[in-house]
């Protein structure tokens, strides 16, 4: 993982636009990108998109099958499923973006330090990473939920923390690789200070790998939120979240299978979209990882 590769030439701007073109040609990645964009837009404009109030019960219309008035049917309280899926997507995106942001804010500086200074700093950071990795994601999240109490914010924190080790490792590996690349060595020889070298030369070089990590992290966080909320450790009912909807659907599997099918499809569509986009980005940005 941390093997130092032979020097790679610094990227130029024209190469960047060529990559964008290559990404546009990748049909799967573009499909993923479009679905992801729809998901993001639905999340941003949920109040405009949702046909009904997601929290308003209508007992006369409970457990209605999908039809013209309720495209995705209604749940046991007669709430419109489509509106709840849209608001659920909003919760998912919120967790996805914020959790990944948290992981980056903590993980990137630590990874840079560990990779750049090596020795003692590296040992401390690496042991810290190992300690965090020693807790399987759900055990960590469950523990945090137990300590902090279940809520959307705490689920976001738990998921963000669980993604920190991966961000540290990737940043560290990139830093190790870039430290010996010619243009960085030149910057050091020119008397560039540590901060300059780290933030002006090494960090930009690590952007590709970190972009790919973000596209992996967002779907993981979306699934994580759904999972925690499903277990009752995340978003609390009556708030809408895809996990909360699925958890509620468990008691109505036989009479109202649509309650389980549509929120699940939304999770799958969102994660699939981000994964496809991420695969495409990896092919374009990180040729070393493309064969993996």
């Amino acid at each position, binding site marked *: *993982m*941390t*093997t130092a590769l032979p020097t790679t030439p610094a990227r130029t701007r024209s190469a960047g636009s060529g990559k964008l073109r290559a990404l546009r040609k990748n049909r799967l990645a573009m499909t993923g990108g479009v679905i992801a964009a729809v998901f993001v837009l639905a999340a941003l404009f949920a109040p405009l998109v949702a046909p009904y109030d997601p929290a308003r019960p209508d007992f006369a219309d409970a457990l209605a099958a999908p039809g013209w008035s309720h495209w995705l049917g209604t749940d046991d309280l007669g709430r419109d499923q489509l509106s709840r899926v849209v608001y659920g997507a909003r919760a998912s995106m919120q967790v996805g973006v914020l959790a990944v942001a948290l992981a980056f804010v903590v993980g990137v500086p630590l990874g840079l330090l560990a990779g750049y200074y090596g020795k003692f700093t590296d040992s401390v950071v690496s*042991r*810290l990473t*190992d*300690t965090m*990795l*020693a*807790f*399987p*994601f*759900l*055990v960590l999240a*469950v*523990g945090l*939920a*137990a*300590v902090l109490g279940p809520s959307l914010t705490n689920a976001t924190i738990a998921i963000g923390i669980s993604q920190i080790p991966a961000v540290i490792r990737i940043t560290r590996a990139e830093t190790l690789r870039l430290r010996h690349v010619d243009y960085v060595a030149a910057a050091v020889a020119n008397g560039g200070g540590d901060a300059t070298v780290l933030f002006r030369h090494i960090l930009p070089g690590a952007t590709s790998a970190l972009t790919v990590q973000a596209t992996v992290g967002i*779907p993981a966080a979306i*699934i994580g939120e*759904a*999972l925690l909320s*499903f*277990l*009752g*450790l995340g978003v609390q009912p009556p708030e809408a979240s895809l996990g909360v909807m*699925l958890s509620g*659907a*468990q008691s109505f*599997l*036989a009479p109202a*299978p649509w309650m*389980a*099918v549509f929120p*699940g499809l939304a*999770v*799958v569509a969102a*994660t*699939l979209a981000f*994964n*496809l986009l991420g695969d495409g980005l990896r092919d374009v940005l990180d040729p070393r990882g493309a*064969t*993996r």
Partner: protein
Amino acid sequence: MSLSLKTARPVPVRLSPMTSYLLTRIRQSLITLVLVSMVVFAGIRALPGDPALALAGEERSPAALAAIRADYGLDDNIAVQYGRFIGHAITGDLGTSSRTGLPVADAITAALPVTLELAALSLLLAVVVGIGAGIVAAVRRGRPEEWLANALALLGLSVPTFWLGMVLVLGFAIALPVFSASGYVPFAADPPDNLRRMVLPAVVLGSGLAAVVMRQTRAAMLDSLSADYVRTARAKGLSRREVIGTHALRNSLVTVVTVLGLQLGHLISGAVVTEQIFVLPGFGKLTIDAVFTRDYATLQGVVLCTSAAYILINLLVDVAYSLIDPRIRLGGAR
């Protein structure tokens, strides 16, 4: 253990690369384990309020609290408390569940076989299906078979475990009642019934892992198939089956073993959810129940055991890996 013998030698000896690699890995694992135990120990004390209240659960009479204070020595210095916690944990004493009043260690021992069976079945499924599909995808490159295997893998990665569980229950326990969707019967008591109940959970838990294994096998096989030694083997006139089976596959398995090791955390997390859906009385259910009943002693024990097991398995995977591939211990990926 041989470890103490080796480290106790008075004269520094030149250790073989393998031994020194092993010693480094063991030392790292031990440090991690100690750090983990500190986090677990600190976690329960980070709870807002009195840890005695947390450990007591519902039983909150002054007498019960005093008993807990004395039992856990909560008035002692924090370092002394930690030392005692570790001492007890090493001898298998993980405290008493505030929910059942029984030793936490007993609850864990009772839950372990369920989770182990679930994990073993899913692992078996993941390895058989994943490696099989990976070989097919690599060998039939560019054909519909590869496309199908890739699509299945991508689905396996994108479908969340718990939703797959619900869909399978809907399909194979409600619509077509082939399998049973809840409860556990020990294998020794009634093997067919046990399997009837474990198939769906194993499929649910194994699917994501199978997808990862498939992708890795495919990538590794593609690498191997284009390698010089495989071309040599072909040129020697070996049959296609021999080339793929003995030459290409064997080298690809190194990667697969590592990936399996890295995925164990997901397996543990997945088991928590799977057991919740299928109402299996395993480790995961014990954990979730402990959270909801605020049974912190059990939670502490379960988290400590899970993490310790995870660290140990990772150590074993690394050792196995270094035995298979000498470059790891000689070159040092770290």
